[in-house]
């Protein structure tokens, strides 16, 4: 099996996974906020320090928290859709095309913006989840964990890879014009 054929096959599978993620992720997130105790097994890591997402949090505050969480999740979906476009282009053999590079840049940007949005939304999220608590028991939490640092590093690495791909695209275009 030739390399281009393998790339096309894997890329097609990955594009389907990316679009499935973009569809399933918001459904799971909404379900987790509306039925937190029943969906705990999903282990989506949405419990915040001192501000657990649980049934005892009134629904209206859980919906407020969901609206806040929608920002980083929206960015994640944007990134997944760009990833889907990127893998579709790879599957069609357009590996070094301008469209592929644009999609790759969007994926990289979405990683950075996701980490930033997740960090900034932590405080209002924890406040929303503890808004119904008695006075003195409201929580505002924020933090940057090892996981966030790892994702940021991954984003930086993919940014460099994107630059390398852009150079490879330039070389590929030049190579095509040599007979």
């Amino acid at each position: 099996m030739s390399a281009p054929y393998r790339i096309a096959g894997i890329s097609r599978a990955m594009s389907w996974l990316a679009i499935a993620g973009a569809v399933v992720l918001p459904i799971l997130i909404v379900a987790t906020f509306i039925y937190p105790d029943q969906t705990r097994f999903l282990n989506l890591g949405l419990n915040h320090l001192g501000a657990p997402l649980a049934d005892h949090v009134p629904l209206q505050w859980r919906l407020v928290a969901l609206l806040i969480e929608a920002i980083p999740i929206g960015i994640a979906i944007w990134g997944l859709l760009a990833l889907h476009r990127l893998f579709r282009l790879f599957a069609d053999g357009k590996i070094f095309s301008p469209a592929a590079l644009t999609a790759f840049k969007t994926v990289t940007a979405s990683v950075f913006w996701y980490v930033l949005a997740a960090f900034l939304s932590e405080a209002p999220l924890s406040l929303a989840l503890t808004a119904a608590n008695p006075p003195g028991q409201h929580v505002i939490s924020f933090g940057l964990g090892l996981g966030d640092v790892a994702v940021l590093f991954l984003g930086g690495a993919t940014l460099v890879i994107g630059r390398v791909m852009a150079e490879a695209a330039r070389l590929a275009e030049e190579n095509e014009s040599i007979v």
Partner: protein
Amino acid sequence: MAIIVNLDVMLAKRKMRSKDLAEAIGITEANLSLLKSGKVKGVRFETLEKICAALACQPGDLLEYRPDAPQDAAE
């Protein structure tokens, strides 16, 4: 570009069609057309060798350096 490609001239001398030459040397007609019109950025030695073998000629018969004349003038 100052390099003029005289492939058309050689094809006419050898009474060979572009399509046949493209098939003989293993490149597409589109690429051969780009080569004839000088719109390529380079030619591989392998391709040049195959053209010379097919047309029984020398590289100098195909390529000419003319610093003041653009490729369009040669056509």
